[in-house]
């Protein structure tokens, strides 16, 4: 019986892009597989691109309104933000290689992404986006203050 090979965490990347498709910076990683990025502007929109060995995993659309806050991105944070949109065309072009590699490896959509889509489609039945293609990549809104929705 062969032993499963461990994933190489050093091949993960989290890149931050501006909406115009220009690259801004890379997030930091530590030995405990956490990522962290600072010095972003509250209220501004950024696109976070997570990849492994240049294979696109998922994209997020980050906007935090609170100065000083480090938003904690975890599965239900994404689901509760409940936002799905398409990548802007210029960014799509910048990520073309990553997207094609994703499609070649047939990388599964993460469960939280599926759940976000389900919730979002339930609220927005006219939104058409349910399959990865080179010309259409979904990204999920993050960074919103979930606690403001608690009564």
């Amino acid at each position, binding site marked *: 019986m062969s032993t499963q090979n461990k994933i190489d965490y050093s091949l993960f990347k989290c890149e931050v892009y501006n909406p115009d498709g220009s690259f801004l910076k890379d997030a930091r990683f530590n030995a405990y597989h956490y990522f962290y990025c600072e010095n972003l502007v509250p209220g501004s929109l950024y696109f976070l691109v997570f990849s492994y060995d240049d294979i696109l995993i998922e994209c997020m659309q980050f906007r*935090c309104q609170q100065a000083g806050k480090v938003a*904690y991105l975890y599965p239900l944070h994404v689901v509760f933000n409940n936002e799905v949109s398409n990548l802007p065309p210029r960014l799509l072009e910048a990520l073309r290689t990553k997207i094609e590699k994703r499609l070649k490896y047939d990388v599964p959509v993460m469960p939280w992404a599926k759940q976000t889509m389900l919730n979002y489609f339930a609220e927005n039945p006219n939104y058409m986006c349910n399959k990865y293609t080179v010309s259409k990549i979904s990204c999920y809104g993050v960074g919103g203050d979930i606690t403001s929705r608690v009564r």
Partner: protein
Amino acid sequence: MARLSNGFLGNASGKIGNVVFARWRNIFTARQYQPDIEDAKTPAQLKQRSRMVALLQFLKPLNKSFIKRFNASLDKNSTPWAVAIKANMKAVSPDACMHLEDLSLGAPSVPAVKMLSAAYNPFINQMLLTYTSGQNYPIPKSMPLVLASVLGKYKSQGDSHAFDTRNLITEQPAGSFFSPFSDGFKYDNYDNFWDVGLLWLSLFEAEKAAAPMNLNDSLAAPVSFIPEPLIEYFNNDYTEDLIPIEAISWEFSDMPGEDVLVFTIDLEKTLITDPEDAAIGMVLVSLNTEKVEYIKPDAWQLVDASFTVTVGDTKALGSFIVLYGVVNKDLEQISRFNRFYVNKNIDGLELPLFQQLFDTGYTHPLSFILPGNTCGFCGSLDELFYDFVSFWERLYHKDDPPPEPPTVYKLSLTLVGPGDVIVEGCEYIDESFYYFNDGESAQLTIQPDDEAHFLKWQGPDAVDVTLKETGVYYLLMSKDRDITAAFELDVPEV
């Protein structure tokens, strides 16, 4: 007290006989007139009144924050404050004392978690709570959304109560609570060091994400904790600052085989009058690449103008947080604890505090309060991309070569004439091409427009197209394919 729905005397206000009419929150009420009590100082009344005063003093600082948030949805016919008074009167002892542990807010419906530890870290001014839910606890096993509310209470000064109400509701990792702290590293700030505290948890599920959340829907009963400082003798009992950090300076020095940090003191910037009767107790934590190490406490007799701490030849490549207090020759503390950050390594490289704390994993980055008008994000790859990691590790094995992507073939479909073709079975679509995994079949359903019909398949691969049923064809994708569907208008009958 009677409630008048329409006001049988109109919108009555005032007293008739022994009935008093009044208006309270747009509700017209009538109640029996209670004349002034002549002697309200019986022992029982005094006792009851002192209990009520104690309760009001305790709850008042929480009225606009915790009481409002937890009690707002409980009783539509009452105020959050009134609900809090009613719920907590029983928590006041006969001698008019109330403890935070007995505070009752909201309507918890889930059992309390078990607190494992409540550690206060004076090096970064952080309270870290760890808890476990135990078996059969309704925390969702995957994708939990855990909102934590933590109320800290500072040491009481007489009858007044001071609370830390900043952690009203925050997103936290399951199993932990990290109090936030700022980067400015103000040396006299220990505002996350509480005398006692209460933790509430609210748990939510993904399916309810679209709807507004009610805090009380899945609120766990609170659990109390008493913080334990990481440094055994740490306290914030002293306010006097005999040796401010401005009086201390530092520099690295490399000695044969080991590096040292040399501290010097400018006594003129201190309030120390007799250096022979004062010493600094100093503890350091080293933040170096991926490692955190504590350097054992040592005493610096202030008759010596400088003090040397041996840090070895690797720690000096990182940065240090220094915590110090001042004692007299009887080892009694005589001044407050202070701390400062040694922000450069021996090579002069600047190492920002938060980056160092993150790189070494000293604490969770969600607890950082960033300076100025900035924000950021953090997260765990294992938490967000667990399924990708599993997918990848299943894809190939140790002795296998790295995985090859599956072979994909391209179908080029051209339409000629009035009609369309629906293509099914493809992996993905790129512009006008359809991509299929090796060995899959393309299902081609022809759809001529009105008054038109399908003529034939054309192109180099037309011969491989096979008819499945009327209007539906198959094409085996064993290589790149190029076909054309030709349609033409029906010939009108003469």
